[in-house]
């Protein structure tokens, strides 16, 4: 079985599991008192956001290791992770407004958290733009690594300053100094969704990695 086929199976399993999570979210998880059914999108929005950040951090880490080891596998992985991260960032930026319209009464606001996600999306886009603009493979890998590392540093900075601006966005309710402020049923659904998004991430990255391999093979012909 090739890597692409394996990746496809993992994604398929992930999508089935995501269906399962949503059955649980809609039928077996209590409805939030103030937000009503709109809150159900939370199980998509939050795991997608966390997976995006994870993807970006891995792009940066792969960049650091690439600059030392010069292993082309790390570069292929970084490329795949960035592309999957872009898709997940797009999910965050789509599900957010869908929730924001009924709850906040607006699709978009220049709130610190929303803006920082948009930043992340732009960073990922510019990462792909840079990759597309360099013809030499070795140079492309090095430039991409440099940009990836800078992007992670910037994301860290943005996170620090997000706490300095007043925000409309709900505060973190799982990873916070006090214990999670979520009823156990909701927490379990959320954690399951996190797991499913990780599976999807792995599956997509495997497929994208396989594409990178094929492109390389094709360019050598």
């Amino acid at each position, binding site marked *: 079985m090739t890597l692409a086929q394996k990746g496809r199976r993992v994604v398929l399993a992930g999508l089935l599991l995501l269906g399962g999570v949503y059955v649980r979210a809609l039928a077996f998880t209590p409805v939030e008192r103030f937000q009503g059914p709109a809150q159900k999108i939370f199980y998509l929005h939050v795991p997608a956001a966390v997976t995006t950040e994870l993807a970006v951090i891995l792009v940066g880490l792969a960049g650091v290791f690439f600059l030392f080891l010069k292993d082309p596998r790390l570069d292929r992985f970084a490329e795949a992770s960035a592309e999957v991260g872009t898709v997940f960032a797009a999910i965050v930026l789509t599900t957010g407004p869908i929730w924001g319209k009924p709850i906040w009464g607006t699709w978009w606001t220049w709130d610190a958290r929303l803006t920082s996600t948009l930043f992340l999306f*732009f960073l990922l886009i510019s990462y792909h733009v840079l990759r597309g*603009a360099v013809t030499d493979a070795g140079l492309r890998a090095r430039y991409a690594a440099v940009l990836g590392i*800078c992007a992670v540093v910037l994301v860290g900075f943005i996170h620090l300053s997000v706490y300095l601006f007043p925000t409309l966005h709900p505060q973190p309710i799982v990873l916070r100094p006090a214990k999670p402020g979520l009823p156990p049923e909701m927490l379990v659904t959320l954690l399951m969704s996190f797991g499913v998004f990780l599976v999807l991430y792995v599956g997509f990255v495997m497929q994208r990695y396989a594409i990178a391999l094929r492109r390389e093979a094709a360019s050598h012909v």
Partner: protein
Amino acid sequence: MRELLGQAWTVARKDLVLEFRTRTALLSAVVFTALVLTVFNFGRDPTAVATIDLAPSILWVTFTFAAMLALNRAFQLELENGALEGLLVSPVSRRSLYLGKLLANLGFVGVVEAVGLPLFVLFFDVPVGPVLLPLIGVIALATVGFVSVGTLFSAMVVRTRFAELMLPVLLLPFLLLPLTYAVQATARLLAGRPLSEVSGWLKLLAAYDLVFVAVALLLFPHTMDE
């Protein structure tokens, strides 16, 4: 350390001498700044929006564009006659090369801003007199932030396709953060708020500068290896 700075100064001096002898780039950057300020004047309705509300944005958008224009030429200069290869085989270390380019860019952008600020005051009648020193501090800190990342990226983009377009696309997400800090600090300064309200933004700007100069110093050699 001495050697690092000495070599950096040699590189910076070479660039600055070149710049001040030809003057083409510098002059066009200054004219560009004046034009952007003029465009802003016509891009608003003075009876609807008070100038003071818009002033920090005008100042910082102008300086951001001017910095970007200046940074585009930092390594473009070295492409002619394979000058970059010459620099790389010379006994100047990669880090000194970065620092030198950083200094030269700071000088270049600094001159443009030194002309831009009086023009801004003149065109928009902003009372900067009482806060001139802290305002210059904000401008200096933000400029170091812009130029530190910009110098690193301009070294990369010269060897890509569409270099002139590539730099803004890569750089703008990185400029937005210092831009936000600088606008917040400038708005408070121009509104006559006490300095204690501004010091937090200044600290953030300084932190951004330190982090990105350090990151760029570490990463720059990797953009230059053959």
